[in-house]
């Protein structure tokens, strides 16, 4: 009931019917039961990779229910073309959108609060072009609407107590996080938890002063049902926006999982780093948001 109450508060606040800032308690966070499953698919056909990785962890129907309002949050925050590895690959985004539509999503929203000029980012990323190719009216790619930022109290936040968050990300039935795996100067890597930046308002730069814990705090509120990390290309240096093909390693891999910490932890190992090297992963693990130890994950690899 907690989430339902929260979503109602968010909508009431946006509709100006309530002055009470919505508060997310985030009950039932720690559920140390079965080991988290990860679907890891490798191969050249990126659309198929996504389908296989998701299939490995139970198929899209385990995440998207018929009639769901789905939000897909890729990283398309930079005015960079796909081969430069700064944004999620357009085919990966397209594949997830297609899966969600097949599963009976009522609407599939795709957006990102960009760092560079929004129209340039959307165009250069190639994502909009791919989404248009699907030709389904249920797909709504849209630019951020500043009216939709809602202040949210983060009840379980250790560092961050309140922030402005995009309403549609909070009220979606199914939020699918689709980051790209890449280098980042401050946090070393930008993965799933870091991708939350794209649904935040306010002065986002301020979060960098305690980035790891802030991202973990936000992860108590923004709860993707499914995270698909795009490691088809990995930006190894000069992240998070890169700009040189030499800095990109073509890894042809996609990682899917329901546990937001586990997918980040696993993706970190692809860079030759220990999961503990990433502050946000450690902080989120400590808050019981997911698994950090790759040994305790059920990794289901698929070769396409």
């Amino acid at each position, binding site marked *: 009931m907690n989430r339902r109450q929260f979503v109602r508060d968010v909508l009431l606040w946006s509709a100006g019917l309530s002055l009470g800032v919505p508060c997310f308690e985030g009950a039932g966070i720690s559920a140390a039961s079965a080991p988290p499953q990860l679907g890891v698919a490798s191969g050249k056909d990126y659309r198929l990779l996504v389908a296989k990785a998701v299939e490995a962890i139970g198929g899209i129907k385990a995440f998207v229910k018929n009639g769901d309002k789905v939000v897909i949050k890729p990283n398309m925050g930079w*005015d960079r073309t796909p081969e430069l590895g700064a944004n999620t690959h357009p085919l990966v985004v397209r594949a997830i959108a297609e899966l969600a539509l097949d599963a009976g999503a009522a609407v599939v929203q795709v957006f990102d609060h960009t760092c560079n000029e929004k129209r340039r980012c959307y165009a250069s990323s190639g994502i909009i072009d791919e989404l248009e190719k699907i030709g389904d009216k249920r797909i709504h790619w849209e630019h951020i609407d500043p009216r939709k930022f809602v202040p949210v109290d983060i009840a379980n936040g250790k560092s961050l107590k309140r922030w402005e968050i995009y309403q549609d990300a909070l009220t979606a039935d199914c939020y699918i996080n689709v980051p790209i795996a890449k280098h980042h*100067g401050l946090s070393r890597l930008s993965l799933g938890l870091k991708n939350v930046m794209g649904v935040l308002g306010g*002065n986002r730069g301020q979060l960098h002063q305690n980035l790891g814990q802030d991202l973990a705090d936000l992860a108590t509120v923004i709860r993707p049902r499914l995270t698909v990390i795009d490691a088809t290309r990995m930006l190894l240096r000069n992240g998070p926006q890169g700009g040189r093909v030499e800095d990109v390693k073509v890894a042809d891999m996609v990682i899917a999982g329901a546990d937001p910490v586990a997918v980040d932890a696993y993706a970190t190992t692809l860079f030759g780093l220990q999961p503990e090297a990433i502050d946000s992963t450690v902080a989120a693990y400590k808050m019981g948001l997911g698994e950090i130890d790759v040994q305790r994950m059920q990794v289901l690899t698929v070769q396409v």
Partner: protein
Amino acid sequence: MRKGENGRSKSGSHYRKWIFLRRFSQMVFLILFFVLFLKTDYNGTDHLDAAVNLLFRLDPFVAACVMLGVKSFIILLLPALAVLLLTAIFGRGFCGWFCPMGTLLDLTSKITPAKDRKNHTYYPNLPLIILVFALFASACGFAIAGFVDPFSLLVRGMAQAFYPLLNRLTVGFFTFTYQELPAVVNQVTEPVYGVLQAFILPSGQKYFHLATLSLLMLVAIFLLEGLQRRFFCRNICPLGALLGTIGRKALVTGKGGNSECGACRLCCSKCRMGAIDAERKIAMANCNLCFECMQKCPRQIIDFAVVAPWSTNSSTSLSRRHFVGAALVGVLLPSVKGVEMLAKNPDPTLIRPPGARAEKEFLARCVRCAECIQVCLGNALQPAFLQVGFDGMFSPVIAARSGYCEFNCTLCGQVCPTGAIRELTLSEKHRLKIGHAWFDKNICLPYAKGVPCMVCEEHCPTPDKAIRFKEIEVINHVGVTVRVQQPYIVDELCIGCGICENKCPLPGKAAVYITSAGEDRHPNAFLPSAGETPYGG
């Protein structure tokens, strides 16, 4: 119209056709003007597909001032020559049939009819004086065209005030409906908002220095319409004066009334340009071919015909004294720039758009048309106030705290009508240094407080990052020893785009800021260097 010699009209209503055509032409060009204005925006590709700056390239006054200023022919401004040729045939038809400012003034006068019955132009010589002054001043290095050119005034007022204001009010309204009103209302309002966003509104809210001044200058022109019809055109407009100077000997010439008209001076009192005198003679230097007199004349005897230029008897209205006076002021005034403080100490924070010419030539070419300011994606370009001198007012400068120069964007160079900003290729743009970034270590968090940040490094767009960091151990602001990344600039890589200054999360003043040090457009601009050690690092 061209009915030859016998004067009296046959049909009695042949003017209707011409008035209709004139109004039609005014509307078409006004709409075209608005379309081009809206098209002065990113279109989803790196290149604009329409010559959105056409209006300014058709402007012979702008062309004359700029070419005199730089003392060379500018091919971009060639279309202005066509206007001059047309003026030699049709007189000031440009003012009556084409000029969007004129059309807007005509529309305004429908709302606020002028009270003045006598219809004497207040300062009939002033436009010519301004014209002569502007031409001489431009030639001597004082670019004044943008202050008086009708299109500069119009587009500037729109780009820097009306358009952002329209957006602000519209968004404000739909924010209210969205946040305060029930879903039933939103089912109607949200689609309307969507259509407005798709076709009319800018992609985001822009903010401008001098928004109020730009607005007031334009509003004043419209308010003056209450004093006299086409007040601006008759009393100020130097473009009109230039066209009138050529158009007074135009092939198409008006034939006014005669002595048989008696006491009737309806044509004289109704003429929106004040082109008909008490003798009912039509001065083609002023007539803009609106043909309203043909309609208003009770005897229907006014007509226009093709007449050989040598047979028209029309003199200039500017006396020698006025001409010499205006020219002298134009020649002498620019010299005062030599004793402006700026001549000794140029403003170090002056960052021009990428591709801007060296400062002197840039100012000579820039006509303050605000096209670059309108097209600038990130609201980086702002109109200057007095930091570049009095004659630099309204010229574009990058204010990084307002917006940064987008790495992959070359739009400002594409819309500049005079080549004050060169059109750059993308690879040129990527390497062009328009300024240089500096850290203020007294407030930069990793230096001042030992707190991690690195937002500047994250946003630095050069593929080989111009902002890097070193990781060192410091005692932070609460006395704890921590390892922290401290940023520094790599001189050879920084292009001065200003995204670091723009995104710096400090409130108010940024801890990293750009100056014009080392900019490429001035060959002797250089960065101070302490030998092998890069400062900051």
